[in-house]
């Protein structure tokens, strides 16, 4: 049994069937690449797993426990975190504050605690600050901690989003096209970062169109097209699979 299991998951939007009968597993500490042409349903998978949309039918389990039906914030508390295709940092908050907010689901201070500020709250705050700073170092953004997130260049906003997602202490990290808009150098740095993330014990699923990144990172590849799974196996074999080749293989890079 894998860390994340999707069992016969289907998603319908009105008349449109975005995903049909999808079954897929993600093993612990694996890096799974999720690819396919535009509209294949990849981001929909992320949205279902994180609870942004409800499933139409089927089950989603994390470490054996069902996730479907839970709010996204509850799913985050269970250990799943993500980044978005269209970057969603908190624009007018500082970089530091963005990452601090990632610690929210792992901390407890409430209204009373915030007003009275007993020792345990102050300690919690110090720990959060330390973690946030450490995470910024980890992704390489420590120097700009106080700048407003919206002023960061695109590539660094991506890093910020990843840092914020890591702050939630996920078991599973979902990255939605993290290399989009990155330069070649930035993409390589991203790949190294994802490698370091996996080394920390986090399982990663990555949606990507950049084939260099996907092939370089993934232990296993799943190919989706029109809401169905076409292929599930080692990346090298995907390149030779006739079904995949027929549907789609390649994006910007060959």
């Amino acid at each position, binding site marked *: 049994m894998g860390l994340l299991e999707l069992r016969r998951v289907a998603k319908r*939007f009105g008349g449109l069937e975005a995903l049909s009968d999808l079954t897929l597993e993600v093993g612990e500490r694996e890096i799974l690449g999720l690819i396919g042409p535009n509209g294949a349903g990849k*981001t*929909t998978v992320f*949205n279902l797993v994180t609870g*942004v*949309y409800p499933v139409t039918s089927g089950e989603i389990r994390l470490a054996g426990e069902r996730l479907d039906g839970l709010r996204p914030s509850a799913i985050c508390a269970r250990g799943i975190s993500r980044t*978005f295709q269209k970057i969603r940092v908190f624009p007018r908050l500082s970089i530091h504050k963005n990452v601090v907010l990632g610690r929210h689901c792992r901390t407890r201070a409430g209204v009373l605690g915030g007003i009275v500020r007993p020792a345990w709250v102050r300690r919690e705050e110090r720990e959060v600050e330390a973690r946030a700073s450490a995470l910024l170092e980890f992704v390489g953004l420590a120097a700009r901690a106080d700048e407003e997130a919206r002023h960061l260049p695109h590539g660094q906003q991506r890093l910020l989003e990843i840092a914020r997602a890591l702050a939630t202490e996920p078991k599973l990290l979902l990255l939605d096209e993290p290399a989009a808009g990155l330069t070649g150098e930035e993409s390589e740095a991203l790949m190294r970062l994802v490698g370091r993330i996996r080394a920390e014990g986090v399982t990663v699923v990555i949606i990507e169109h950049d084939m260099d990144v996907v092939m370089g990172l993934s232990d296993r590849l799943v190919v989706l097209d029109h809401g169905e799974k076409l292929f599930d196996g080692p990346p090298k074999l995907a390149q030779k699979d006739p079904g995949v080749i027929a549907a789609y293989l390649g994006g910007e890079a060959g």
Partner: protein
Amino acid sequence: MTERALVQLLSGLVTGSVYTVTALGLTMVYGILNLMNFAHGEVFMVGAYVGYFLASTYGASYPVAFLGAMLGAVLLGLLIEAVGFRPLRDAPQLAPLIASLGISIFLQNLALLVWSPTPRMFQTPYVNQVVHLGVISLSGQRVLVFVVSLLLIAALYVIVQRTALGKAMRATALDAEAASLMGINIRWVVVATFALGSALAGAAGALVGPIVLLSPFMGIPVILKAFAVVIMGGFGNIQGTIVAGFLLGIVESLAALALPSVYIDIIAFVMLIGTLLVRPTGLFAEHLEENV
């Protein structure tokens, strides 16, 4: 008793038609901009006053006053768009909302200052005419309101479904980005939508003016009810708005048989809350389009 009920039913159709016309103006703007214009009620109010002044001070005939009211409303609507919505098209959603609220307050109180709080009576030759329908009699003005409203609704339907402008409007409402990529000038669509929506509100004002007393704050119950109709009918949904508008009018009028008048205004609100609770348009449903 049934005679009273019948009168109320017909009366409900009349009020329903007015709600529908006003709400249609509101829902059109929502469909394009995804924003509610709080000042729509004041466009209605100004329409009523312009019609009144044209008829009483300048002695214009009612049809002329009516058209003048629509024209005045259009001008006001365009001004509101230019001042309150255009500068804020890239701002977070809260900003145009607050701005339109500000415009609404501004216009109400400006009207209060300029036209004084004295309630005005908008006289037309139809108010005192009586129309007999079998055993029922209605004031001519009410019949006129109903007929003209239906004509306006029909005209709007034709414009939206059959003209190039209407097509552009529908395309923009579906997907503004795609529409502009296909060569539709979004700016003009927005302006035209505001103009049409305001014309409807002004027309409603000029129609209803003779039935009620004019006051600078007459737009407030109207906007709240129009909102209720728009929400019940489904934002941006023209057919739904038509059904909801008439439904509200009829429910209110029938309820007037049983409830004291104070509570009538609350009915719209209760229906609104009921709709929102039963079919909530929560956070994630709206964001569906964003995330994918």
